């Protein structure tokens, strides 16, 4: 719909007429800001959230260290963005679909993905649901309604619109939340997704993690506008900007966004202001493009610390509990990592399954030829050769029906 109000004054709008504030509930020392619209978070729910944030932090630290030791090819940390990711997930129904970018493992931790499941994917072993086909951190879980990660930036955003439209037609009262960064929001897919969601009234929450950087590119080189949030107005979509390091603000805003999405079948854009405390990935070194001083300033605004202060203040958490949980988590990560790295790789045959629902004759011929070749040069292809060896073949295909539910 286009408005037709007329004016005889020659007047251009520059966009500065709008200023989108940042919604915040919790100060850094864990106190509620006076008069703030805070969520009614129960103690058990707060514990579940806090423990998921802490578990994500611990896993990220250990796995980055493992990558540095050469045990893992690649890793990406959620560090600094745990409140944005876990808080948003916690405000959803556990059956709502989550389509993530790649830095949102906190959502999976919150929903109950086990360390064993994480490790199997990271090491691409025979139990990896993805059958060792994707780089580390490309998790997926059907039973936890978490779409398998795809590397290309922003492709999940219009898919979320479509998924949510299907949920609306199915009438189950569920929605889709899609995560992406402020850099990915420059992709054409972002604009396609938001416009289609508004036009087709899809119950989808677009959750932008504005973490300051797209690898090395700062936001000032990503967009000239006041962040990502103003774009929603162009699509006539509900929007809110929030302090992404404030767990209560994230939770409350997402809870309300979900209500709008599911009850009114309207999409919502949330721009969560946060900071990527870690490098982009294990292949990146931020010292080349940002200062230690800047990082330190954000470290003081650590979202986990802020929630901890709030929990301790309410007598819901203590340093003793913190220490024992951290120790337990570290031990569990190490144990599951050791288990996962010892497991054999997926069977050679998984190279050609799942390209189509059934293996085509041409693909079967290619696999047969490859097997024959590997049998002639087993030393050159140790992973494939071990899967052809009858003695180890018993483990082949062990992952076929896991996580499927």
């Amino acid at each position, binding site marked *: 719909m286009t408005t037709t109000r007329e004016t005889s004054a020659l007047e251009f709008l520059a966009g500065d007429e709008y200023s989108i504030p940042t919604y915040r509930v919790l100060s850094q020392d864990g106190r509620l800001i006076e008069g703030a619209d805070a969520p009614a978070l129960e103690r058990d729910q707060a514990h579940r959230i806090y423990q998921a944030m802490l578990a994500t932090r611990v896993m990220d630290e250990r796995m980055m260290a493992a990558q540095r030791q050469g045990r893992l090819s690649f890793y990406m940390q959620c560090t600094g963005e745990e409140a944005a990711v876990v808080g948003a997930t916690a405000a959803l129904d556990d059956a709502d679909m989550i389509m993530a970018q790649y830095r949102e493992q906190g959502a999976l931790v919150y929903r109950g993905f086990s360390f064993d499941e994480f490790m199997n994917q990271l090491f691409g072993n025979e139990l990896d649901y993805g059958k060792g086909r994707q780089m580390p951190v490309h998790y997926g879980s059907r039973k936890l309604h978490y*779409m398998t990660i795809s590397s290309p930036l922003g*492709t999940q955003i*219009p898919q979320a619109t*479509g998924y949510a*439209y299907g949920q609306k037609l*199915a009438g189950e009262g569920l929605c889709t939340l899609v995560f992406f960064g402020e850099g990915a929001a420059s992709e*054409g897919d972002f604009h396609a997704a938001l416009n289609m969601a508004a036009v*087709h009234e899809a119950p989808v929450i677009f959750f932008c993690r504005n973490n300051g950087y797209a690898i090395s590119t700062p936001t000032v080189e990503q967009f000239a506008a006041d962040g990502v949030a103003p774009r929603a107005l162009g699509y006539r979509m509900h929007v809110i900007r929030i302090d992404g390091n404030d767990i209560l603000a994230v939770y409350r805003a997402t809870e309300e966004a979900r209500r709008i999405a599911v009850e009114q079948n309207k999409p919502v854009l949330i721009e969560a202001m946060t900071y990527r405390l870690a490098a982009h990935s294990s292949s990146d070194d931020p010292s080349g493009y940002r200062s230690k001083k800047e990082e330190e300033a954000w470290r003081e605004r650590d979202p986990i610390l802020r929630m901890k202060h709030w929990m301790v203040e309410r007598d819901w958490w203590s340093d003793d509990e913190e220490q024992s949980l951290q120790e337990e988590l570290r031990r569990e990560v190490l144990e599951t990592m050791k288990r996962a790295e010892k497991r054999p790789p997926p069977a050679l045959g998984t190279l050609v399954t799942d390209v189509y629902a059934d293996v085509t004759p041409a693909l079967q011929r290619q696999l047969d030829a490859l097997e024959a070749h590997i049998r002639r040069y087993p030393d050159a292809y140790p992973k494939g050769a071990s899967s052809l060896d009858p003695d180890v073949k018993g483990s082949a295909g062990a992952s076929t029906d896991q996580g499927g539910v």
Partner: protein
Amino acid sequence: MPNMNMLQAINNALDIAMAEDERVLCFGEDVGSFGGVFRATSHLQEKYGHARCFNTPIVEQGIVGFANGLASQGSVPVAEIQFADYIFPAFDQLVNETAKFRYRSGDLFNVGGLTLRAPYGGGISGGHYHSQSPEAYFAHTPGLKVVIPRNPYEAKGLLLASIRDPDPVLFFEPKRLYRASTGEVPEEDYQLPLGEAEVTREGTDVTLVGWGAQMEVIDRAVELAEKDGISCEVIDLRTILPWDEDTVADSVLKTGRLVVTHEAPRTGGFAGEIAAAIQERCFLYLESPVMRVTGLDTPFPLTLEKEYLPDHLKIHEAIRASVNY
């Protein structure tokens, strides 16, 4: 049995699919109340409502991204790209998403329910951007199926099979035949197999392979060749990916000669793949080199379209050259 043109056959197939399964949705640019610029989706919105048949904004990457999401959710999207020439903004969604959805998730998720329809091909004075045949780009992408019908009967049966197939299908419709090609089409539901070529004419001297609008061009060339006393075997590939090597190889083992034709440019065209596969499987049986009759390696022209197209005369020449090699 009623007589239908290809558009009516396609419309009839969509109608059957939507009536049978409420998860089937049809959408795209101008697809809603207007029924599509070619009218392939006529009356579907009236019959099945706005929620299941609707216009989208003009955003091909969005249409395919949206369709991927719907299919992964369990819906059965039949999306339309108005012209195959405009499929390229959606290339990433198709090649990196649609094609890899099942594989990358280890079969936790798939978009098998997706069918993407797009009119393709020349002969309608459409110039660069209403004439292209992009099948070879997608034939290079494992995980996609690429299907092209040659007449109304084939269009209905192959489209219904595509919609119900457990894998995503690109369904390219030869728009030159939309109204030009008519024939008997059963009212009832039927499917034709994907991944299977059809021998449409048996012969002994030379095998001709094509698909879509080229099939009637082949038939005209064959009429000329038969007058020369050359016996031609004609194969409609029907599915470009995964293609039916066995049927083509069996035929070439018999005839010893192969001519492949498509409208798309020669270099990197799908005829090259067929030629390579067939020489691997039939080398000692070949009496002459595999020949290709294709478009030129140029953008699709306008005024000189007739000169560009691989018509019956060019195919007839190739048949003679193959037999007299």
